[in-house]
């Protein structure tokens, strides 16, 4: 490991300070490293171009983004929300539980926390506001439940993790199911407590006819995750093909069943998909150059040697990694944590013989909690903007949800069976 390694890290920090796009910070840092070392920049270009060509699995990302955007644009969220409302019925703080359930269902279609917050979130906040819930609480609940998006399959961060670690995407998707239900339970417990304390309204009485009608309307939307998961686990489709099929199904439902998507709206869906893909891609392109440097400087070897000299148990390692990534989550974007810092700790996961799927689910949940933690919490920015509340009020309300989700993270970290239960059953 040479001092040249400090160059890309210096530029990464400089990007943070100067408000330069992080992806550009990574690329510029890599360029400076190659120039300082007297190595041709063609190696950097090569690692970006062929790195992208060899990342077949990542093609699922734009396809999942497209599915989520198509679902959001075609108002599928309304059907999902109505269905969840009839399932919950009369309870104190019923709409709070409806949000949790609707987010879980919608998570089966999107795979992205930000798509969930910006799509379903608008509806959730509007409804809770109408019913007299405190708006900061409504925004905090929306942000907290959006974390379910990338935990319940499909999941864009799981796809990226699978590409980085070599874990199976199918197993990752299975591994996320129980943790998603666990998250629903811990969030639900807090909603139960706060609904009684603040006397939030009781839900409306639902007749069987209303229930049947909302279920009938929601069935086409509810089939999306079923098609996706059955397609993957029966071996009919690869996860990437399943993402395309889910996108096609979303279009069919929007055009021919719900009649809620126009050609003009489809154009916007495509443009939004392109822009979101582009933002992720710039970080990925930068990360390929950065990871080339990390590999050639043998950083992983040094990190393993350093950590193994004083951390002897996997339990302590998991604690340390969780704390490190929670801190990183406060400071950097999730893509930076995933593409820059995760590859550095992955050799340690193998060194301590930790199951890759278990670690993947734990670390993705950890990074998603990072979307809720200030100062750099993207979900906070989105929901504060949607609800028009101050970040300060929102942070106060979101803090108990963060604690609840960290409790769930602790359970998942130290009870591997909670993650591996379904993957072991599928063996």
């Amino acid at each position, binding site marked *: 490991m040479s001092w040249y390694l400090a160059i890309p890290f210096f530029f990464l920090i400089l*990007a943070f300070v*100067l*408000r330069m796009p992080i*992806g550009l910070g990574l690329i510029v840092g890599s*360029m400076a490293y190659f120039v300082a070392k007297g190595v041709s920049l063609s190696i950097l*270009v090569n690692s970006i171009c062929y790195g992208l060509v060899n990342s*077949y699995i990542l093609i699922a990302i734009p396809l999942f983004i497209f599915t989520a955007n198509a679902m959001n644009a075609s108002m599928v969220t309304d059907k999902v929300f109505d269905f969840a409302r009839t399932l919950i019925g009369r309870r104190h703080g019923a709409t709070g539980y409806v949000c949790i359930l609707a987010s879980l269902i919608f998570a089966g279609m999107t795979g992205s926390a930000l798509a969930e917050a910006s799509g379903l979130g608008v509806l959730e906040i509007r409804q809770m506001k109408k019913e007299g819930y405190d708006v900061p609480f409504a925004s905090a609940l929306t942000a907290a439940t959006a974390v379910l998006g990338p935990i319940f399959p499909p999941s864009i961060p799981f796809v990226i993790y699978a590409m980085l670690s070599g874990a199976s995407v199918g197993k990752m998707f299975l591994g996320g199911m129980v943790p998603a239900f666990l998250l629903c339970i811990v969030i639900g417990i807090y909603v139960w407590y706060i609904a009684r304390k603040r006397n939030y309204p009781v839900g409306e009485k639902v007749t069987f006819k209303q229930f049947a009608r909302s279920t009938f309307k929601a069935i086409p939307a509810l089939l999306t995750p079923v098609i996706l998961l059955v397609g993957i686990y029966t071996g009919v489709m690869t996860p990437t093909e399943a993402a395309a099929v889910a996108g096609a199904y979303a279009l069919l439902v929007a055009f021919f069943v719900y009649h809620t998507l126009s050609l003009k709206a489809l154009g916007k869906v495509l*443009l939004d998909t392109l822009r979101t893909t*582009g*933002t992720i891609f710039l970080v990925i392109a930068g990360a390929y150059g950065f990871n080339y440097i990390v590999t050639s400087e043998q950083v992983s070897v040094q990190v393993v040697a350093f950590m193994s000299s004083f951390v002897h148990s996997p339990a302590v390692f998991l604690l340390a990694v969780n704390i490190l990534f929670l801190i990183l989550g406060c400071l950097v974007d999730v893509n930076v944590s995933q593409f820059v810092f995760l590859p550095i700790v992955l050799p340690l996961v193998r060194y301590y013989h930790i199951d890759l799927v278990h670690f993947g689910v734990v670390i993705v949940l950890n990074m998603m909690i990072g979307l809720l933690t200030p100062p750099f919490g993207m979900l906070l920015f989105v929901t504060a903007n949607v609800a028009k509340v101050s970040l300060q009020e929102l942070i106060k309300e979101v803090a108990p949800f963060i604690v609840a989700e960290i409790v769930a993270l602790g359970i998942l970290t130290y009870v591997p069976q909670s993650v591996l239960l379904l993957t072991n059953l599928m063996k």
Partner: protein
Amino acid sequence: MSHLKKIGRLAVDSIEVYLPIAMFILLFLAFLANVFFRYVLRDPQNWTFEFCVYSFVVIGLLGASAAYRKDDHVAFDLVYNKLSPRGQNIFRLIGSAIVAVCFVAALPTSTLYIMELPSKTSIMGIPEPVFFVSLIILMVSTVIRFAYYFVLDVKAFRSRTYVQTYHTDRTETDALI
């Protein structure tokens, strides 16, 4: 002049927006075709896989260029937001200068390397530079945009307004949805 502007705009839109969207639609159809060929016609096709992989590169790199339009790229602004307007102006100037200079410096080597790549895709036989040229387009677009931001920020600095005059309509949700 306005005609030239329109033509220029159309050319940029075609490269940055219409082409990658068309590639995305084709990628989408290629995946569906792949499943259809494999399970309905019992005749798996390899070209679909290769087409998807290479078109993904084009979509991502040109998409990254399109994302500049609304300043969608993720940036960390906590330090920046603490500064005075003058400090923010200076930071923007430094950031834009670094990006523009580094990318200009890297452009000749990168262009030469990509254009001289002799390899072709193994199934479709298309020269790889056809796809990898997207990286050069992204680099050129980065240079032009950041040089333009630099000029606007120099103007703001000289007029002592210090205000950012580009991407003024951007909101957090704009950047994320």
